[in-house]
């Protein structure tokens, strides 16, 4: 029996050693993922993988979103999905995975409905994410909202695989020493009177000029990319989208684009970026804290004041930064009620869907409406009509992990040491009790 058990254990160890996971794949196969949050915000993500096929659950996990699931024999139930700006669901195991369905008094049943894109339409999945096989070209969708057994009333925004995973352009092999002929961003630097200007960071200092040699961008959309231009001077002291003059490390290639570069308050623009060769990418919106983001993604932003967007990519010992500014002009006064976003409190004429939204409380805080891919259309229209100005960047969705953490070796070793100490004391006391009982006998 003991020998068999030992053989079984050795076999398991061998299988484990041979079948070790290769880690996050950047392979030839790709699949799309669209997630729609309860406030109408949506996210589209292209996920690459090496394997011939993965499960829908793998796709969700590899998207980089924070996901809480309840594992079971039949698969995994998705309890919560979150990104740095949105989160919906239930904190399993502290509460039930379907906490908004089962608890009396919590209102209608809300949960993460799972969809698959079939023939250009969303189809409510009749299998769980762990049972769904994903191959190259597949698109999965998740939507938080009201639902029942046979389906949900909310669907994710309709996006094709090509929109989510555009054909990648090979990056330029050698940096061109000549100035790029890309048009200068058309964004005018006319500050709107009355609009609160965000404090520009040092990377957006207007007096700096971009070095012409730092032009390899690797994107096919030069009109919208905030790439270094040949403009030798910036005549005014206003903010102009430009790149930081720090020398670009060869390992990191990054682009940041903003379309359009000027909006009327209440409208949205698409901020998209693509970073290659970085270990981590961070986005800073206005004066809010930096948040980690995917290397290639996009964000639909609807600020009410001029806002600076700063993207920072970090490689081994290098880092690079791109910045862009979205100019916001005041809307023309209309006979109807005129919204005055920076200072006015929400009124009945300008309802704000999410009561917790603090748009008016923080005038300089940009608001995020929809996340999408660089080539995808702005999804605001396909989302609910009220999804224009919804949420502001909130805290990163990080569950409370108590006590020890694998990321904190000191705490880990202290915990293990204390456990060993308590266990040793217990064993000593137990052995003493046994010995004593034997002697008394």
């Amino acid at each position, binding site marked *: 029996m003991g020998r068999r058990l030992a053989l079984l254990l050795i076999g398991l160890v061998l299988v484990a050693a041979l*079948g070790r996971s290769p880690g996050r794949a950047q392979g030839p196969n790709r699949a799309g993922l669209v997630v729609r949050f309860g406030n109408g915000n949506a996210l589209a993500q292209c996920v690459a993988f090496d394997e011939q096929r993965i499960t829908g659950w793998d796709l969700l996990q590899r998207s980089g979103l924070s996901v809480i*699931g309840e594992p079971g024999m039949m698969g995994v139930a998705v309890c919560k999905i979150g990104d740095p700006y949105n989160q919906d669901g239930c904190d399993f195991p502290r509460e039930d995975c379907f906490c908004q369905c089962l608890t009396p*008094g919590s209102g209608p049943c809300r949960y993460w409905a799972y969809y698959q894109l079939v023939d250009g339409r969303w189809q409510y999945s009749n299998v769980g994410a762990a049972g769904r096989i994903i191959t190259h070209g597949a698109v999965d969708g998740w939507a938080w909202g009201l639902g029942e057994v046979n389906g949900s009333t909310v669907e994710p925004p309709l996006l094709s695989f090509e929109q989510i995973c555009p054909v990648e352009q090979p990056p330029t092999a050698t940096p061109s020493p000549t100035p790029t002929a890309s048009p200068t961003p058309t964004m005018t630097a006319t500050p709107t009177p009355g609009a609160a200007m965000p404090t520009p960071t040092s990377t957006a200092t207007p007096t700096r000029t971009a070095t012409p040699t730092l032009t390899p961008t690797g994107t096919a959309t030069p009109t919208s990319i905030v790439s270094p231009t040949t403009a030798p001077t910036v005549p005014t002291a206003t903010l102009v989208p430009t790149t930081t003059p720090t020398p670009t490390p060869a390992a990191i290639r990054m682009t940041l684009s903003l379309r359009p570069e000027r909006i009327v308050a209440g409208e949205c623009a698409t901020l998209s970026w693509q970073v290659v060769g970085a270990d981590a990418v961070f986005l800073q919106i206005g004066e809010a804290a930096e948040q980690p983001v995917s290397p290639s993604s996009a964000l639909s932003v609807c600020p009410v004041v001029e806002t600076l967007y700063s993207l920072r990519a970090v490689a081994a010992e290098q880092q690079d930064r791109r910045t862009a500014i979205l100019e916001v002009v005041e809307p023309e006064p209309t006979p109807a009620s005129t919204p005055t976003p920076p200072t006015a409190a929400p009124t009945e004429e300008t309802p704000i869907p999410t009561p917790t939204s603090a748009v008016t409380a923080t005038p300089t805080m940009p608001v995020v409406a929809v996340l999408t891919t660089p080539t995808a259309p702005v999804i605001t229209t396909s989302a609910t009509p009220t999804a224009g100005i919804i949420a502001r960047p909130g805290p990163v969705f990080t569950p409370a*992990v*108590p006590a020890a953490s*694998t990321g904190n070796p000191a705490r880990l070793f202290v*915990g293990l040491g204390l456990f060993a100490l308590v266990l040793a004391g217990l064993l000593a006391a137990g052995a*003493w009790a*046994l010995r004593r009982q*034997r002697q008394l006998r």
Partner: protein
Amino acid sequence: MTAGYHPLSWVAWLMAGLAAALLTRNPFYLLIVCAAAAFVFGVLLQHHAGHTEPTAAAARPQAWRPVVRLALFLGLFTVLFNFLTSHYGRVVLVRLPVAWPLLGGPLTLEALLYGLSTALSFLALLLVFTVFNGAVGPHDVLRLLPTFAYQAGVALTIAVSFVPQTVVAWQELQEAHRLRGYHRRRLRDWQPLFVALLANGLDRAVQLAESMEARGFGAATAALTPRQTRLWRTGAIIGLVALLMGLLVRAFWPAAERPGLLVMAVGALLVVGVLMRQGRAIRRSRYRRWLWRRRDTAVTVTALVVMAGMLAMTRVGEDLLFYYPYPPYDWMPPFHPVPGLLAALLLMPALLMPPASPVLGEG
């Protein structure tokens, strides 16, 4: 007869052990609970081995040994099953082909740890119950029950003690067969053993019924007037209906949750009141009295401290007992000395256990 302590002390220890085993899934704390319960069990075996002649009390812990072995096997099975079927987690150890039904997909460290945590939780619960059952006899448990629950308690006790008694009978029969040089090679050879076991079980049931009859079980209670009978029956019916109404309101009318709870509470109080009143009509006498000693106070106070401490840690501040290995939580279980030491306090009955003594000394 209880081993070493007053039955109420053992009940307090059981409650503390259950609190420690049920309130956490942290393998560190569960390991400590298992180790403490195992030592108490070991001391209990030594204590009973000290008796000069074999008694039913001495046989009780022995009877639970196979159950503990079964629990260890089930624990191993739980770990393997969860590891192979729960394909969830960040730290992938093995990746099986997705096409394999049920087993296909990544096998993760988190699934292994969750299986281990489940197995330890199960083992801790079983060990705590094993110790309690080894220390406190069924008749002691019956004596602890309130009068109105006496009859239900008897039925429950008989049901609960069925498995250990059958295990003991099985072992005795096997031993008897071995002594007679009987070897089992085919399936048919097991037949005499099963027949004897069945006959033994029936015999035991008849003996039990006779002894219960001899002790006046089910005898008529004190005489009641028709008015009293009507009153109690009406009270019980109203109480039960109120309980049901409260449950229905709570389940199907969420807006009226509080009134539903109130109705439930009133119904429950009414039912308990009627039952207690009815229980007073049953007269019970005690031949042997239990003694409360200093060591009982020590064990009970320690158990209460463990219970209160464990409950407080789930309510106050950071939940020190929380552990869930799957993402987005940390797979490495945290360890804090306070819950660890509290769990270790479950060893107290082993430390203060008196030597084996004559029956009267056991109280």
